[in-house]
């Protein structure tokens, strides 16, 4: 708890003209604030920050959980690029992100546009579409997914009825990843709610003015709605992309813990988990974790850079 005492009071915001007594009270309140935060701070330091620093160190060592970590420099990082399974895991994850994220956002936006129009029962539909986002990430749903995408289960039968005899997706290395994509797309409710909020913010008068000029529905969407909700769209793209990179639970459960068949669902975190906790290659696994962080940071940076080109904040638009 020394941290609380030593930390400089973050009282920049306190009015400088305030009397000394007020200042002291402010400081006391800050101290109390830190004290109340201390369970969280302790948890953050012990369970998040500490392990992160440790894993940064392990990333440069040969460490099997039992030995004293041996410094190997960049070996773990160079080894990744020679490892066919690592390459595979990158390819699988990239495919999942590139296919799943746009589909999910398109569906979310589409349904949000429909819901924004409807007057009646909006609350019901909103809740109904949002529900999968609440339960979708759970392990039990992944189990259900596993069974509906098996041979002769509902998906197989529906597809056979229209003449596509693909069999169950779960055992098929060419199809199983799409069952995971379907699982994430199905949870479009969360970005949808955010889109809905964004759509409500678009001023009515813009549409009225456009209608007077004879703009059609598509033109209104393209020239008004899309630019006006582009900050919300940006936010959703960013969040969903970062989230997609971290996929683990659904791949782990739908493939019955082994991220197969033929490594078809070997997403990045699953390979990391296998190397770290099954093969006890903790140094390599740590290096993988930092590599993922770098990759996500890079993608985020590119997205932020790109927003200059397509995201319009309200001040610019008016």
């Amino acid at each position, binding site marked *: 708890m020394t941290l609380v005492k030593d930390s400089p009071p973050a009282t920049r915001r306190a009015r400088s003209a305030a009397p000394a007594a007020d200042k002291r009270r402010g400081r006391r309140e800050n101290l109390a604030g830190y*004290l*109340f935060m201390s*369970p969280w701070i*302790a948890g953050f330091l012990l369970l998040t920050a500490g392990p992160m620093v440790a894993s940064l160190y392990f990333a440069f060592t040969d460490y*099997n*959980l*039992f030995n004293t970590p041996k410094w190997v420099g960049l070996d773990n990082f160079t080894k990744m690029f020679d490892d*066919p*399974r690592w390459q595979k895991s990158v390819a699988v994850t990239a495919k999942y992100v590139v296919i799943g994220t746009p589909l999910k956002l398109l569906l979310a936006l589409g349904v949000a546009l429909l819901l924004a129009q409807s007057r009646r029962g909006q609350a019901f539909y909103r809740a109904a579409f949002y529900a999968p986002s609440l339960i979708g990430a759970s392990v039990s749903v992944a189990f259900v997914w596993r069974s509906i995408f*098996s*041979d002769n289960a509902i998906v197989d039968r529906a597809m056979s009825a229209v003449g596509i005899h693909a*069999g*169950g997706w*779960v*055992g*098929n*290395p060419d199809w199983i990843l799409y069952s995971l994509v379907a699982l994430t797309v199905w949870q479009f409710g969360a970005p949808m709610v955010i889109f809905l909020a964004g759509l409500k913010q678009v001023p009515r008068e813009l549409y009225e003015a456009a209608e007077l000029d004879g703009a059609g529905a598509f033109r209104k969407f393209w020239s008004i709605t899309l630019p006006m909700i582009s900050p919300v769209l940006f936010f959703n793209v960013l969040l969903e992309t970062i989230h997609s990179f971290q996929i683990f639970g659904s791949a782990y459960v739908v*493939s*019955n*813990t*082994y991220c*197969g*068949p*033929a*490594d*078809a669902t070997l997403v990045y975190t699953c390979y990391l988990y296998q190397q770290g*906790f*099954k*093969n*006890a*290659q903790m140094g390599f696994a740590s290096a993988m974790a930092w590599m993922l962080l770098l990759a996500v940071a890079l993608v985020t940076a590119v997205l932020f850079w790109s927003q200059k080109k397509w995201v319009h904040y309200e001040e610019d638009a008016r």
Partner: protein
Amino acid sequence: MGTSRNVERRTILKAAGAGAAVFGLGATAGCGGNSGTSADGTVTIRYSWWGADERAKKINQTIQLFEKKYPKIKVKTDFQDYVSFWEKFQTQASGGNPPDVFQNAVTFLRKYDKRGVLLDLKSQIDAGNLRLDNFRAGVTKVGEVDGKQLGVPVGSNTMALVVDKKVFQKAGVEPHPGWTWDDYFKALKTIHDKTKVPGDTGYFSIMYLYDLYLRQNGKAFYTKDGLGFDKADLTEWWQDGYNRTKAGIITDPKIVAQDRPKSSLSAGHGASEFTWDNFTVRYTAEGDSEYGLAPIPTMDGKHTGQYLASLMLSASSRTQHPKEVAQFIDFMVHDPEVGKIMGYDRGILAATEQYDAFKPTDPVNKEIAQYEADTAKAGVLGTITPHPSGADTIEASFLRIGGDLGLGKVKTSDAVKQFFDEAQAAFQA
């Protein structure tokens, strides 16, 4: 404003109080974990194993018997399924906090010996706390590494061919001792032709079976410190396996993937499977058919390459109570009542006191006993293949890569290279 502020404070205080309580509890638990001896001299030991509810029920009964006989020793238990068990164990052991006594198997013995996790039970045997006599011939060897006794067998088993009796009968196929691989693969084809069921669920990715095949050819899966075969050997084994999968006499690996965690044999998608003989108990519970045991095919009409393997109890080198742990192991492997409760759940009971005490009455367990007796009588049992550190990872790699190969997603030469690379990494880890 004033009231809402008060409410907030009260809520926050409550939350802080709860937080403090959690921290307090954490601290207490931390202290309790270390010693395991209470003021009145009662010792608590931790015992973990892998298995399912059925096994847990039986083990809990045996622990009650133990605690009755040794009132000063309390046993705390913990169990998971096989894969989770070893993941948890690895984490616990690396943190210096493994269970005092635990179920163990030969693939993990050298790995954890190398890491200094296992207690050499020799001193406890010499002190008379643990008896190593009255065991089935040769079975205690399984727990020996470099002159140290690192595990004591609770049950022993051998690799066997588990068959779906109904499908075999329908196809008119009759396995017999000394049958050859040619006979076996012809039988698979007959079964597939007559019943449409693939004859086998994927023999070529099972490490323990390939070991037997290699032993029949004067080699083995492992030497003391490496692989006992070369890339050409494995290329041939896997290429044949792939061709047979394509021909339909081996279950499509897509189906195998969907059947998990069930076996494709008990799911009715294959007519036979190479595995440990005590697994018929599990398959009988899982599947709809009747399951029996058949001899391992041979090269020369005689040698099957089989040996006695076993599940063992091992102790942690960090245990504070080696004597109590030794007494516990002794009780669990020798006490006749324990044998009656456990039956053949973990293989044929290894010590004669237990073996004699349990007489199977149901056909499945009777057949296991008969199979073991026949195998022993045939004189085909040899010395167990050494399993170097890393064998556990290698077994998993062999299964995974073999399965990928069957799916046709990878060329045989690439699969073989991948396996050798992963094996190399596992030996070094």
